[in-house]
């Protein structure tokens, strides 16, 4: 199985397979096979590669253990691929598996850092800690500081919408206009008129600023805690639908140019 995380390391460091192989004193073909998962490195080779790409070699074995249980389920890395190729869109992510959830947040951040995007991660305290810990061996402290902003969901929910609107406005304002932004938001419950709608109402002054920015936004929920009714409502609002294993067009997205939404049977009868 493909070691997607290892590819991320290399790409983030802007190195080719040949360069990593050369610095790690191994053949390029061998290194390529390690990335694709066809071969497993010895401890010495793993240590050398880790030195070149600046991560803890233990990660090699930890990830191999974790991935053997669930990475084989990923459909050809189409989700990291989507994050790599899209800088502007909105994705609705309903997850079932926490391990895969974390893997996707990490991939979202790493592919963002690779593009020098600024990543805002809004999640619950425990999850943020886990994400931070996973990133620490991969990114330098400076990269963590300059590229990522972690926001505790509980604190955010307790704040006033006006204050939050001001906070986000200032955050956007400080950034260079050409810099793209990624926002990952994880929530427990879905509400029709939620805190985000309230903030948006108070961000009218930032409308132009927001429109100018390239924003990749992922909104995630635990699939077992959201009803089908809410899911349908959300699918109408978001152009992309993501699960633990795949990403696809949202079939109910109402604002698509190529929308293929037909009325239900009885509504057709009324035509």
């Amino acid at each position, binding site marked *: 199985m493909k070691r997607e995380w290892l590819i991320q390391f290399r790409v983030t460091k802007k190195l080719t397979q040949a360069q990593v192989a050369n610095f790690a004193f191994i053949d390029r073909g061998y290194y390529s096979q390690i990335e694709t998962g066809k071969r497993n490195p010895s401890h010495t080779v793993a240590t050398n590669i880790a030195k070149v790409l600046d991560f803890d070699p233990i990660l090699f074995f930890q990830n191999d253990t974790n991935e053997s249980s669930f990475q084989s*389920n*990923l*459909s050809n890395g189409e989700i990291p691929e989507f994050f790599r190729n899209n800088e502007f869109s909105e994705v609705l992510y*309903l997850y*079932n*598996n926490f391990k895969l959830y974390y893997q996707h947040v990490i991939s979202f951040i790493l592919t963002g850092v690779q593009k020098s995007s600024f990543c805002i991660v809004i999640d619950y305290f425990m999850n943020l800690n886990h994400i931070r810990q996973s990133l620490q061996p991969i990114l330098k402290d400076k990269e963590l500081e300059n590229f990522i902003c972690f926001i505790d969901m509980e604190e955010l929910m307790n704040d006033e919408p006006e204050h939050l609107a001001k906070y986000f406005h200032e955050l956007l304002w400080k950034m260079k206009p050409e810099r793209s932004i990624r926002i990952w938001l994880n929530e427990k419950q879905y509400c029709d008129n939620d805190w985000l709608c309230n903030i948006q109402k108070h961000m009218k002054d930032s409308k132009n600023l927001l429109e100018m920015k390239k924003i990749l936004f992922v909104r995630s*929920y635990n*699939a*077992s*805690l*959201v*009803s*089908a*009714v*809410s*899911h*349908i409502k959300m699918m109408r609002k978001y152009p992309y*639908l993501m*699960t*633990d*294993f*795949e990403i*696809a*067009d*949202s*079939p*109910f997205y109402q604002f698509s140019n190529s929308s*293929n*939404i*037909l*009325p*239900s*049977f*009885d*509504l*057709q*009868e009324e*035509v």
Partner: protein
Amino acid sequence: MSKTIPLTRYIEVSSSSHIVYFFENERIYLENLMAYIKTGLEQGQHLIIIEQAEVLNKALQKMNVSEAGKKYIHHYDNSSFYRSYGDFNIESILNHAMDLIQPFLDEDVDFRTWSHVKWKDQKDIANKLDQYEGLADGCIGEVGYMCVCAYDATNVSAEIQTNLMRSHEYIMTDEEFVHSSLYNKKRIQSKK
């Protein structure tokens, strides 16, 4: 290759189409059931309706179906069919379904089905429904008939819904009818 047939007066779909309907409003549910029956009868198809007798009778009364038309409609109680009093037993439900459709296949008679899926709260129902619908989809493709599986959207989680979007080619709500973008995407073993 399967032929296309009218699903309604305005849409043609493959003769072996698996449709999942997430309903919220009972009145609209009834209207949709009536529209489905009406097109089936117009096509000269038999209809296998797995639903509460009370609901089907209400629909037939509203539609004013003739006695001759009623001969084309075959009713089965959904609580008994899905064993909604006990364990959602995939094998037994599928066997029961085959028993229902076999006479139509033997006689080479066109038919379409509508089932309101019901279950009693139980452990691992998301996986059971996923397995059941996956197997049912294979059977529909093989045998070649049109099938609507109706689920009460207020009683289904997004987890179950996502699985159903993978096993059904079309999705309907009270308002919309769409092609499922998750259908036939590589099915993955997500089971624990």
